């Protein structure tokens, strides 16, 4: 009779443990798997997957226990099992070596929880030890229990582990393709080959490397590291807020003349976290992209600074923007609205005469807010001789700032030329920063085209979103800007 009662008690406790575990797992998965539409503000948040306060605790400070994606889903069991081990009357008083291990483990948990919480590699340090501790303590907990209970409990542990692998199977598949089957190795073979074999990369035309040890490891040529004593001044300037044309020119000359730098090598990752700095503006204005492979970006410095190039006789500017005026119609008289879904308002910024602000003010329920606006040759007063620009390049040089959450592939600037049959070819660039940036789009105009348009595509998510533009230039040139 007592045996049956005891068994019932065990079954109830076991079920309760399973239910609590499933609830804990479910709630943790919900939180740590949450994807925020906004982007992580800092590199730390991005790498550590800790962009919200709760994720910062679960994936960060307590990541050793709850970072399921990276470190499995059983480590948290160490907390209740260790408490049981220390307070249960069933276990003997812990021995010295056991206390020593618990002491070191706790010290490491605290150290990593405080100092290394944003780096999964540091959290990984304790993973083998913690997971082994869970298995040993669970074994001890069930030592005097019957075989079926043991098998059942460890089967549940196995099931939890397999579920975790299944839950994040895409991550495993990705790593498998990248590093094991090597279907898509993450190595820039083309870039390395280009830099190694290109005669133009030499001691008089060096590469400024922005945190790119890859260059020094795989390429036998000399480079200039961005934080080395020679170049640190450049990096300090790059990290400042995007400055004036004079700032860009100063940096251009320093790189070109003093450091003999002609190329800049960085990764998209570094560029992403320098959207608000001069670096991005410099890359947009004073450099041209040469190669993009995987996440690596190689830029070449322009032969002359942008402003100098624009003023040269080979470039002809078609005036579409009058900074001295104060209304939308007078600042950009040729501005056209091509397509739109919703009502959009164009207004001049308060106290900023030469800035036009675009926003959506009304939309039908369920419809997507969207507007295409810009310029079309030979329409609304924009007189351009068709014969003159065929075979040449049309360049759209624009200063723009867009609401942060609209830095995506829906919003862009493009140039398109249409054939008579209505087909078209376009060059485009996406807004990359919520701050004021210069964007340049170049397009070779094909002969026999019926029309050329230069377009802003703006898709706000709410009436609060804005697109601000100023200093718009259209330049015809024999080569792309």
């Amino acid at each position, binding site marked *: 009779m007592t045996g049956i009662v005891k068994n019932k008690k065990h079954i109830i406790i076991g079920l309760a443990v399973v239910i609590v575990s499933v609830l804990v797992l479910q709630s943790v998965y919900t939180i740590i798997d949450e994807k925020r539409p906004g982007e992580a503000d800092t590199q730390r948040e991005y790498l550590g997957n800790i962009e919200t306060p709760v994720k910062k605790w679960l994936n960060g400070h307590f990541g050793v226990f709850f970072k399921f*994606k*990276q*470190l*499995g889903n*059983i480590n948290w069991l160490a907390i209740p099992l260790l408490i049981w081990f220390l307070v249960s009357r069933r276990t003997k008083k812990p021995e*010295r*070596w056991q*206390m*020593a*291990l618990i*002491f070191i483990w706790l*010290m*490491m948990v605290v150290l990593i929880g405080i100092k290394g919480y944003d780096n*999964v*590699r*540091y959290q*990984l340090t304790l*993973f*083998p*030890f913690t*997971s*082994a501790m869970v*298995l*040993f303590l669970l074994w001890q907990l069930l030592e005097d229990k019957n075989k079926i209970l043991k098998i059942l409990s*460890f089967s549940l542990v*196995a099931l939890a*582990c*397999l579920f*975790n*692998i299944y839950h*994040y199977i895409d*991550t*495993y598949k990705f*790593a498998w393709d990248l*590093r*094991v*089957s*090597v279907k898509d*190795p*993450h*190595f*820039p073979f083309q870039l390395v080959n280009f830099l190694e074999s290109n005669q133009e990369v030499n001691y008089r035309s*060096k590469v400024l490397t922005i*945190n790119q*040890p*890859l260059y*020094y*490891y*795989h390429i*036998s*040529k*000399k*480079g*200039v*590291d*961005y*934080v*080395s*004593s020679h170049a640190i001044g450049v990096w300090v300037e790059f990290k400042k807020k995007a400055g004036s044309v004079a700032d860009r020119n100063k940096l251009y000359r320093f790189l070109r003349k003093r450091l003999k730098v002609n190329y800049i090598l960085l990764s998209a990752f*570094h560029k992403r976290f320098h959207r608000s700095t001069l670096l991005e503006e410099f890359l947009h204005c004073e450099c041209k992209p040469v190669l993009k492979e995987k996440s690596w970006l190689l830029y070449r410095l322009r032969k002359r600074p942008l402003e100098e190039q624009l003023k040269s006789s080979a470039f002809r500017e078609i005036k579409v923007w009058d900074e001295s005026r104060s209304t939308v119609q007078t600042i950009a008289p040729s501005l056209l609205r091509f397509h739109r879904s919703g009502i959009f308002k164009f207004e001049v910024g308060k106290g900023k005469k030469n800035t036009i602000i675009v926003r959506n003010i009304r939309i039908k329920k369920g419809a997507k807010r969207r507007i295409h606006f810009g310029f079309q040759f030979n329409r609304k007063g924009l007189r351009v001789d068709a014969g003159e620009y065929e075979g040449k390049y049309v360049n759209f040089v624009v200063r723009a700032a867009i609401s942060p959450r609209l830095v995506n592939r829906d919003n862009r600037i493009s140039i398109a030329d249409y054939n008579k049959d209505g087909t078209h070819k376009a060059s485009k660039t996406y807004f990359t920063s919520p701050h004021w940036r210069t964007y340049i789009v170049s397009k070779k105009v094909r002969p026999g085209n019926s029309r050329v348009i230069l377009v802003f595509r703006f898709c706000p998510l709410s009436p609060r979103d804005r697109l601000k533009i100023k200093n718009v230039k259209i330049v015809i040139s024999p080569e792309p800007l």
Partner: protein
Amino acid sequence: MIAFLVKLALTNVLFSLVIGAALVRLNKHRIGSTGELILYSLGLGPVLTALVLYYLLLFIPGQAHLFYIIGVLLVYGLIFIFSIKGFHILAVRMKEWMKSAAGKWKEFNSREKFKRAIYWGFLLVLLGSFLVVYVGGTLQTPIEHHDALIYGNLGKMYYQQKQVTYSKVMKPAKNGFYFQGSQKPSFSLLLTWEMMLNNEQTNQKPYFDMYFRSISGYFGLLIIGVYFYWLYKKNKYLALLGLPVLFSGYRFFAMMVNYHLDAYRIFFLLVSWIWLVYTLKQKDNFSLLLLGVFSGFAAFTHLIGLAVALFNGLALFIFYEGDLKVRIFKTAALALLIIVSGNIHYLLEVLFGSVSGYISYISY
């Protein structure tokens, strides 16, 4: 590929076995099993090679590469002389073990034999598949990971400069490489060693660093080996469960197939804790020696290892059973062992500064 296998066999197998045999000879009280000792020793060959190279480049810089190779071989030659008796003991114990295993096997009924054959066969298939996939796939790709490249560049720098320097003035390397961080020399020196073993032409080729690249996979397997060994002591099925537990952490899987030092550093700190337990339980000098050696190597590899070495010292002082004098003596001995096994790097950095910047990480 042949050059890689030779370097692997020399550094990871032969050197490790020489150390293992020396330890077997030293282990008079038979702390832990012989197999266990050999398992831990398999990690010692590479790291001791790095340490010897470190001392040679520090104290006798600027010599020909051959000098350093001979220097390392000489050190292992001396250890080998000491370990000849150890090899003899090892052979005797292996014979005994094989005899007893064969006897046990005979006693098993056919069902038990079948179960065991399936169990070990499954593990062998797993290991074999991993090795085939790892060597055939993963190891064929060049290093692209940022941190591993930093360590690699430092290794190349040691190779080119033929010295380990400490200086308050940080200068870029000849090729312009410059990094401010807290990288420890141990992992990088494995590449230096590999490049020294290569001929000059090989060092221009894409596979010049295959041995360096194999370190994460090799030490990943050793971690699994240690994990498996200890769980197996409780129950063989618990040991088997350990595998999905480890791989349910994506990062562990990534650690095995990425070129990094994580497996390398985690192995040493993990084993240092095992020797801490032996030291506290057995109170013998052999365990203390290995606690010091593994703690020192953990520190020689990574900054977290330094923290572990400090905590190990603290734990020994607090939890060692004995009067204050004994505890102070043992802790001081441990500290000395840790310093000799690589912690000297930190002392020199504090005293003379570091070419790569001591804990002065620049946020980029």
